[in-house]
């Protein structure tokens, strides 16, 4: 990291006030906007943006938290891998506390499993080199933001001939999920706050089909408070034009300093080389066609599921929670009867409470007493 970016320029209160005034002027009718990125979820809550919105404007959190949409069976599979005697399980930190059917990685670590938190997947290569007699398994959770770094790690492992590194491929991709959200007949959504980080990789063009075919306004938005407020203004202007019938929905980019229409083509090539699209199950939502990655033929040997023959028992769905409806934009966390009672970050029932970036956890931590 050579340059530390000053963020003060994106956090000026007078500018924020002007944008908030514009939002109040534009949102004269009820309107619901959805973000689909955990970083947006946290930023909106952390900067208290909901407390600045007009009454009729709802900011919803979609299935944007990679941990939250990871099915129970895949959590169980990670735990089963961690229990294998010769395995070092490596993972991003947010997976540690996620409860599986009967345990969590945090609990397995307390019980003696070798579970290590990584800051970047490339560290797994060093661990593999340092532990030649053990299998290093990386829990591959994440959207297009993280999958390229994991793809790069696997490509490097192949080149080096690293024999003892494999990945549990639980990846998800964003555009197919947005299309599903936009196609719900009873949808209460008026526009998407599209994810900034994911879009640096896939480019804003990835949202053009959903904007065009579902007439759904899309704006790619950055993560600073002024980015988010400016993005909401752009969305509201588009929503108004679409409602009046003076324009069709389109994809706009607020986060121009990082996102182009084409995206990061080198990363896209890498993804296309290492992975191929597959149908993927989204926890509490169901299977979405073409919304995941599995290893391509050339890299299939890196699939930890096959290499380790991990067996897990049948998993039962968590009952009583409305995470699915929350992630589809149909309900708010506070609409759930379990919220902040039976379901808390310490003792979560549903997936949206288990990750810090989950809608319920963010609501619990930041918005609970205010809303």
């Amino acid at each position, binding site marked *: 990291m050579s340059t530390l970016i*000053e963020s003060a320029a994106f*956090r000026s209160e007078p500018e924020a006030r002007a944008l908030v005034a514009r939002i109040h002027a534009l949102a004269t009718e009820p309107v619901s906007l959805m973000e689909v990125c955990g970083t947006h979820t946290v930023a909106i809550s*952390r*900067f*208290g943006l909901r407390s600045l919105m007009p009454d009729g404007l709802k900011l919803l959190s979609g299935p944007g938290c990679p941990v939250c949409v990871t099915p129970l069976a895949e959590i169980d599979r990670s735990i089963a891998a961690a229990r294998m005697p010769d395995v070092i399980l490596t993972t991003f930190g947010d997976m540690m506390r996620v409860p599986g059917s009967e345990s969590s990685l945090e609990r397995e670590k307390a019980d003696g499993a070798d579970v290590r938190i990584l800051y970047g997947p490339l560290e797994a290569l060093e661990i593999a080199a340092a532990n030649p007699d053990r299998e290093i398994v990386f829990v591959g959770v994440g959207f297009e933001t993280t999958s390229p770094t994991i793809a790069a790690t696997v490509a490097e492992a192949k080149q080096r001939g690293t024999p003892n590194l494999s990945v549990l491929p639980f990846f998800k991709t964003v555009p197919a999920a947005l299309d599903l959200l936009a196609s719900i007949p009873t949808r209460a959504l008026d526009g998407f706050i599209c994810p900034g980080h994911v879009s640096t990789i896939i480019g804003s063009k990835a949202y053009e089909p959903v904007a065009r075919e579902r007439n759904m306004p899309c704006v790619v938005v950055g993560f600073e408070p002024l980015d988010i407020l400016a993005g909401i203004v752009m969305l509201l202007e588009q929503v108004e034009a679409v409602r009046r019938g003076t324009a069709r929905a389109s994809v706009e980019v607020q986060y121009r300093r990082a996102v182009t229409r084409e995206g990061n083509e080198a990363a896209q090539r890498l993804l296309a080389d290492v992975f191929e699209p597959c149908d993927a199950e989204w926890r509490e939502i169901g299977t979405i066609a073409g919304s995941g990655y599995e290893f391509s033929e050339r890299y299939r040997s890196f699939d930890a599921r096959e290499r380790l023959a991990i067996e897990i028992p049948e998993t039962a769905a968590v009952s009583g929670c409305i995470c699915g409806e929350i992630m589809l934009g149909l309900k708010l966390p506070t609409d759930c009867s379990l919220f902040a009672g039976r379901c808390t970050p310490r003792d979560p029932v549903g997936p949206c409470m288990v990750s810090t970036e989950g809608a319920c956890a963010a609501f619990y931590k930041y918005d609970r*007493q205010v809303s």
Partner: protein
Amino acid sequence: MKRDGKIKLAHGSGGALMHELVSELIVARLSNPVLDSLDDSAELPDVAGHALDGGRLAFTTDSYVVQPLFFPGGDIGKLAVAGTVNDLAMKGARPAYLTLGLVVEEGLALADLERVLDSVAVTAKDAAVSVVAGDTKVVERGGIGGLIVNTAGIGFIPDGTAVSGGSAAAGDAIIISGTIGDHETAILVAREELRLDEVIESDCACLNGLVEVVLDACDDVHVMRDPTRGGLGTTLNEIASRSNVGITIDERAIPVDRKVRAVCEILGFDPIYMANEGKAIVVAPARAAGAIVEAMRAHPLGREAAVIGEVGGRTGVYLRTLVGGIRPIVMLEGVQLPRIC
């Protein structure tokens, strides 16, 4: 608390889980009026019935585990002296005597142990405390990271000084002595070997000198706390809950080092919950705040002291964000974990 479980690392993070452990397992068994106040150090009105002339004793203990043992801005020896000195100072006590317990892991380099002990000596001398008793144990290799240090400390609280975590009152100002999050961020960067161009130093320091300056500037200080584990957010929650008051702080007023902010943003950590080892929160009537801040700023350890908020309003801790929004600051549930993206 689930009784069939096991201790997890999160039980030691200073957050809600640890509070539960302390109150339900420990205090529940050992309860007495002195312990129950749960301040940074215990306040002893007398010793075996013998009262002290002109004041009371402050008594505290703390064990120190840190990886790596040496880090930018300090080491485990400096930390062990400063941490206990600070726990005493936060009660308005003048620290006097320390004990030093060493649990050494087989295989630790003697040179490293010497460096730690040199650091203990220098830090104790600077803080004008004497190490008067000690103990050394060597344990088999495995899991303690080379060295664990325990210190206990005794200090003297002069009559007229009554500082406690439960004394914050409506109309008080919240003051912080400088930038937050430096220690934990420095440790994180050192431990994970994150390759940065600039060094982040721990703020590890003895605060008894700064505390004297504060008490000279204001004879009506209500609360002093050092926001160590769990950071500013957790400590303010403890103050609010023990004093049964509301606290609102202003994000723009909270000093955060540029480098610390950048590292936290990248990893998804909130500096408000990052540990400090050389910072004091002072709660005092608003009319005295100007004089306290001025006095602190004249001291080398308080140059960036600032009023960051006030006591009042509904119960709980709230943050006025940089862009004017309001959100609650709750107690962390466990350790902060680095996020995926």
